[in-house]
């Protein structure tokens, strides 16, 4: 089934061939993982969220109105799940350090923790200091390299608001990382 289109796999699942869903999982799990890990700053949390997002997609497969664009629909679910998870986490605990603490830990090697990812802990920590909406917008724009129109469709936020969020995110990151990168 690896050569099957998204629409063909979905039709197979709806027809009772449940295992066809694994074709969709294999196709999208890594792309979604990158966004979720960067968004949540933790592979463990990202794994939980992705399990939940894929299950939501599976349960709501009949609601995927454009099966050829399953990826975009799934991405919408992943973004929403990440948003909800981050919001819940923020309520429960002050998971992310404040901006001031973030830069402090960013330049202090040896303070490894869960968010120490391959890409360099200092960037991840600075990213985690951003408000959720700015982090989400920055990742979609500059890491997933989406257009603002695509971002608007996925997030349900207007293009102008998204542009503002991205700009603020860039300004904050610059302030946090200037000392590390010297511009």
């Amino acid at each position, binding site marked *: 089934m690896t050569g099957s289109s998204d629409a063909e796999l979905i039709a197979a699942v*709806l027809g009772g061939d449940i295992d066809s869903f694994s074709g969709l999982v294999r196709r999208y799990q890594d792309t979604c993982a990158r966004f979720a890990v960067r968004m949540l700053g933790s592979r463990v949390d990202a794994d939980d969220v992705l399990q939940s997002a894929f299950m939501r997609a599976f349960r709501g497969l009949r609601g995927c109105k454009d099966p050829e664009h399953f990826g975009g629909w799934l991405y919408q679910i992943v973004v929403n799940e990440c948003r909800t998870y981050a919001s819940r986490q923020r309520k429960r605990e002050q998971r992310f350090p404040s901006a001031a603490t973030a830069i402090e830990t960013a330049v202090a090697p040896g303070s490894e923790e869960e968010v120490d990812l391959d*890409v360099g802990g200092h960037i991840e920590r600075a990213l985690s200091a951003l408000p959720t909406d700015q982090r989400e917008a920055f990742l979609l724009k500059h890491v997933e390299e989406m257009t603002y129109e695509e971002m608007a469709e996925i997030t349900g936020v207007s293009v102008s608001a998204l542009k503002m969020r991205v700009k603020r995110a860039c300004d904050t990151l610059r302030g946090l990382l200037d000392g590390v990168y010297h511009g």
Partner: protein
Amino acid sequence: MAENFEAKQSAEDAAFVERIASALRAAERAHQSFEKRLMDRVRVEGATLYPVRATSQTSWWRRERVLRISPIAGLALAAGISAIIAVSSISIGSRLSSGGTQSSATIQRASATDTVQLVRFVFVDPRASSVQLVGDFNEWTKGATSLKLTGAPGVWAVSVPLSAGRHEYAFIVNGTRWVADPLAVKSSDEFGTESSVIRVAALRKSET
């Protein structure tokens, strides 16, 4: 002079952002057990959600189905503004005695092959011009499930096939007003938006 400065600043900003973003673009892999764990869950629910399409000669419209009609009494709101009757769940099959009747036997046979149950949602508001039902079963899509006026004034209803399990739902009145069912169990999301909860019971083997 000022333009040169702005252009230089903009180029520096772009270079800075690109430096950060390129690091974050590094590939990330889902855990090697991710697919297996997920598919284990998918297979458990899959048989109920997406049963293998029947290949028998029996047309879908001739197959027997369990009808769960749960008219929950409407709640008249203060000042007689609106009343809501929510979903309910009166399981015809489960209320029958074990001794069974002809009806019971018919329903029991149906339950062995049909796991989706029809649930009727009723909403009462004499001033409503449109009522929509949103829930996890339609991905909270506004416009996907519209209630229709019944014979009684101000009484809107729709029947929706639901799989067994817990479902969340709400009504959208006149295209904008979000209304949770006051008589049902409430569920609130992170942003304080209330929705209602209905549980559709799984049909037990003994009922078959």
